[in-house]
């Protein structure tokens, strides 16, 4: 019997919407996959594209970035910048041959616990379908 592959997904959540949305999902006892490793950032505009590259280098099978809906940003426009930037990153990753399913981005507001569950399920499903991502793994040198 083969064991199902459990992907590692790094999620960058904005403090004001998505993190609160994920928190709401938790307090509402909504079940969602535990493959997500959440990193809280103050704004989705804070996510440097190199965070994503670094996460993939350090063994993530997928990356999820989530922020407030456009127009709802706590800092007025952070998610608009994030949208432009991460769109380009997605194109670039796709272009060099990374499976596009490894990179997901979503808008989840603080009241959307159920949407958060769906997003996570989709991200995990996608990464699972894409399989383990080892080609890009940083070589660990043990001295």
């Amino acid at each position, binding site marked *: 019997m083969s064991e199902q592959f459990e992907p590692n997904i790094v999620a960058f959540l904005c403090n004001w919407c998505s993190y609160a949305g994920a928190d709401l999902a938790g307090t509402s006892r909504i079940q969602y996959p535990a493959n997500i490793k959440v990193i809280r950032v103050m704004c989705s505009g804070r996510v440097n*594209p*190199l965070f994503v*590259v*670094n996460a993939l*280098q350090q063994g993530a099978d997928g990356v999820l970035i989530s922020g407030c809906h*456009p*127009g709802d940003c706590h800092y007025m*426009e952070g998610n*608009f*910048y994030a*949208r*432009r*930037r991460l*769109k*380009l*990153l*997605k*194109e*670039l*990753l*796709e*272009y*060099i*041959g*990374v*499976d*596009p399913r490894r990179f*997901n*981005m*979503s*808008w989840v507001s603080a009241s959307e616990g159920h949407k958060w569950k769906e*997003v996570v399920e*989709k991200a995990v499903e996608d990464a699972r379908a894409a399989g383990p991502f080892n*080609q*890009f*793994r*940083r*070589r660990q*040198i043990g001295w």
Partner: protein
Amino acid sequence: MDLNKLRETAAGIVSREDVKYLIGWRRGTFGYRVSPYFIEDAAGVEELIFSPLCISNLATYLTLVERLPVPRGQQPDERKVALLVKGCDSRAVNQLLVEKGINRDRVIVVGLPCPGMVDWKLLAEKYPETEAPVEMRWQGDDFLLVHNGQEIVVPRAEALAEKCRLCRHPNPVISDATVGEPVQPWEPAEDSGVGEIEAKSAPERWAYWEEQFSKCLRCYSCRNVCPLCYCEDCILDRLNPTWVNRAFNFSENTAFHLARAFHLAGRCIECGECERVCPAGIPLGRLNRKLAKTVREEYGFEPGLDAEGEPFQASYRPEDPEEFIL
């Protein structure tokens, strides 16, 4: 291209009180090579050239120049720098102005409409490099090469550089003085390099770039030559945090190339310098042009056309595409 007129204009600019030097091109020491040339007085203009071999982008010297601390009691040198630009170079100057990397009052831009440059590596296959510097001129649409005392007409399609085949702005978009008549822009060719990769499947693309990135020596020539890579504190040099390890392996090379390409997204003016200087022959232009293409097609944005414009990644439109967001 009337060289005498160019030299006259250059001499006029260099002899001005408020001009430090003029950056142009002169013949190199051998073969097809052309070197950058810093002219400080009017006598120097005799060696100035503008030929189909002047492919290098001189705009990089605006920011590459070392700014030593000024000794106590001395005033910093505030004189202007004059620069010869082709169409693509002028976009780099514009982009630098947009990013406030240079001060408009400190540069004099001499625009040279460019009928297209030669990739000498293509030429050298047929006409090997000689010990003496060769001469080259435009002749109608084609190039005239003086090789071993012989005048050879090289058809345009045979030697035109890749960036020039794709060129959309052969005339300078910013200039204080223009030498020569504007050229008629030609129909840019289909970007076969990017198209070829886009047509591949994801694993094939990965295999392609794996081969390319594995060749990388991490000499950072591509960064150093780029007119738009001028951060004083570059993430590649930074140790804390170490964004990209110095280790020489595929993972770090890929991270480096992703970072380099990404930092030029929406800024790259497609002058092709990174690709030209790469000692390993990595087709870096294909990375940059892919992002430039996305920016152009999906956002209708072209960098370096308007010196008063906004930087692409530091601006947004509420209606930007977001079909990829869940």
